């Protein structure tokens, strides 16, 4: 039995039956990280002492009859979540030495659910990127082919789960940062409805788009984690106070009669032929499972990328103004005066892509340009959102590819921001409208994984997870592990 290929359900059952202890399980993953992380660069910080202390506590709780849902389950957190007493870098030189003074709500909740923290995963700087190449701590490599990117911005969490250096990991998704890397490394990842999971303690990029979620091998594994993470948090002013369904129990909801809408605009020019064919095959699989397939259209969806590249930089320029070199974060050497301190601390502390987005945002919000760019983008955002709403009168879920291509070569798109931005053409819509969406593996093209995307109306996570689980009950793409990491 290899502990790293077990599902969350099998791990939780195995721990409960005392087939293995939380300490043994944690040591197993720490050993794999020790052997394999250097080549992948999936973790920025590994916390072995803390992990073993967590694991010992989990075993003691189990012996005392106080075990809860996930007692003893190891996981990794994206380095965007504040972890009390542990370095939290957000992939940036700006926070290279920052030790968070408190825990993010989801970190706190997952700890209360009994999990063991293995470490903090690599990411694009401040979650701005689709390839994990903007990280100050170096690119992450795709476990299926080390010359390829793992996607981004949650590239470290994606690679860690794909290589089984963690059974599950947290991620965040502002424009596709959970779903696109999940697709590129062949794992499952869910971005919940905006407001479903607390953003407290999650370093802000674009506050009206950011949402925390889960990356794991399967939809069932995601359900276990989301169960522990979701729910109202008074410390996040946009957290929604709505009951959390039992995602795990509802995984087996039948697919019979489910109306799945194929979004025409998801199959336009730019979609790789092989990727499109695998997604079509998955749609046929859903038909065979009893779903009704309908054709839907969201004509303004192709405008989601330009909309996003106004709205997200605008919000980022405002959010990142907190990094001033005074209260925390990087400060330049020997500032001449306060202006010099601000400018050089920020100029030296932020990487190129972050500076590019701050400047884009500053420009579109500046006097004389606000109406032409920002206000117009917010109106188009409303149009796109209304088109999704209309589509959900015709279908229960929507389906399409997650990413137009499979994983690309490291270095191949870094010099062309527009080409890089277009990676997120199918994922951004869900963020603009605040919808839950998920990527699951649906096959391989030239030995690289291809992702299938499912989207639903607000608060339909359970329906998405059960639809993904239904597909994964008759396919095994989600169980494939790259040869070097079996």
């Amino acid at each position: 039995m290899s502990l790293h290929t077990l599902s969350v359900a099998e791990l939780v059952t195995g721990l409960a039956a005392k087939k293995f202890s939380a300490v043994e399980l944690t040591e197993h993953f720490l050993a794999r990280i020790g052997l394999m992380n250097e080549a992948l660069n999936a973790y920025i910080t590994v916390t072995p002492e803390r992990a073993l202390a967590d694991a010992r506590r989990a075993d003691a709780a189990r012996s005392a009859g106080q075990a809860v849902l996930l007692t003893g389950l190891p996981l990794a957190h994206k380095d965007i979540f504040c972890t009390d007493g542990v370095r939290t870098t957000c992939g940036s030189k700006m926070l290279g030495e920052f030790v968070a003074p408190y825990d993010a709500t989801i970190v706190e909740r997952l700890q209360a659910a009994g999990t063991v923290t293995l470490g903090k995963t690599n990411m694009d700087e401040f979650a701005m990127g689709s390839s994990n190449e903007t990280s100050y701590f170096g690119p992450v490599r795709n476990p299926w082919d080390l010359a390829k990117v793992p996607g981004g911005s949650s590239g470290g969490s994606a690679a860690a789960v794909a290589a089984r250096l963690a059974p599950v990991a947290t991620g965040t998704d502002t424009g596709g940062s959970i779903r696109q890397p999940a697709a590129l490394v062949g794992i499952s990842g869910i971005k919940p409805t905006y407001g479903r999971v607390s953003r407290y303690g999650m370093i802000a990029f674009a506050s009206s788009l950011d949402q925390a979620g889960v990356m794991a091998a399967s939809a069932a594994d995601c359900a276990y984690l989301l169960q522990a993470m979701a729910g109202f948090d008074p410390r996040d002013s946009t957290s929604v106070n709505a009951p959390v369904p039992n995602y795990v129990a509802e995984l087996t909801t039948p697919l019979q009669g489910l109306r799945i809408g194929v979004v025409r605009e998801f199959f336009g020019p730019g979609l790789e032929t092989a990727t499109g064919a695998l997604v079509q095959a998955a749609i046929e699989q859903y038909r065979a499972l009893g779903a009704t397939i309908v054709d839907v259209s969201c004509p303004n969806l192709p405008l989601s990328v330009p909309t996003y590249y106004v709205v997200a930089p605008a919000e980022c320029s405002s959010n990142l103004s907190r990094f001033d070199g005074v209260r925390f974060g990087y400060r330049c050497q020997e500032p001449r005066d306060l202006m010099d301190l601000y400018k050089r601390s920020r100029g030296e502390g932020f990487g190129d892509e972050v500076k590019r987005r701050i400047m884009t945002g500053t420009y579109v919000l500046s006097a004389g340009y606000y109406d032409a760019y920002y206000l117009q983008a917010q109106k188009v955002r409303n149009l796109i959102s209304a088109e999704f709403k209309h589509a959900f009168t015709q279908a229960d879920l929507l389906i399409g590819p997650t990413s137009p291509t499979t994983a690309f070569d490291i270095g191949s798109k870094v010099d062309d921001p527009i080409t890089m931005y277009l990676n997120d053409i199918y994922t951004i819509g869900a963020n603009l409208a605040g919808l839950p969406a998920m990527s699951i593996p649906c096959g391989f093209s030239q030995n690289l994984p291809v992702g299938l995307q499912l989207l639903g109306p607000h608060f339909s996570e359970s329906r998405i997870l059960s639809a993904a689980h239904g597909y994964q009950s008759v396919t095994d793409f989600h169980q494939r592990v790259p040869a070097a990491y079996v």
Partner: protein
Amino acid sequence: MSLTRKDVEGIAHLARLEISEAQLPVYVESLSKILSFVEQLNAAQTTGVEPMAHPLAGEAQRLRPDEVTEQDQHVKYQANAVSVAAGLYVVPKVIE
């Protein structure tokens, strides 16, 4: 939209970012490209459409009771600052 070097210097100043001489032309080019790219939004018919600032439109902003919920932890928080004296953040002299 094509930006000039002076435009980018102005934006960088507003954003409080020091941009090196060598990097300026790179930003002139990429920011111009991005602005041209997002200008396709002008083609969308948005007459009478409300701007959308929040994905869950209609959710009222919640208020909380005006009660003290945080304890004073300034020593812990200031441990992340580069320069602190007597509980205050130290910066270069502002008024001569």
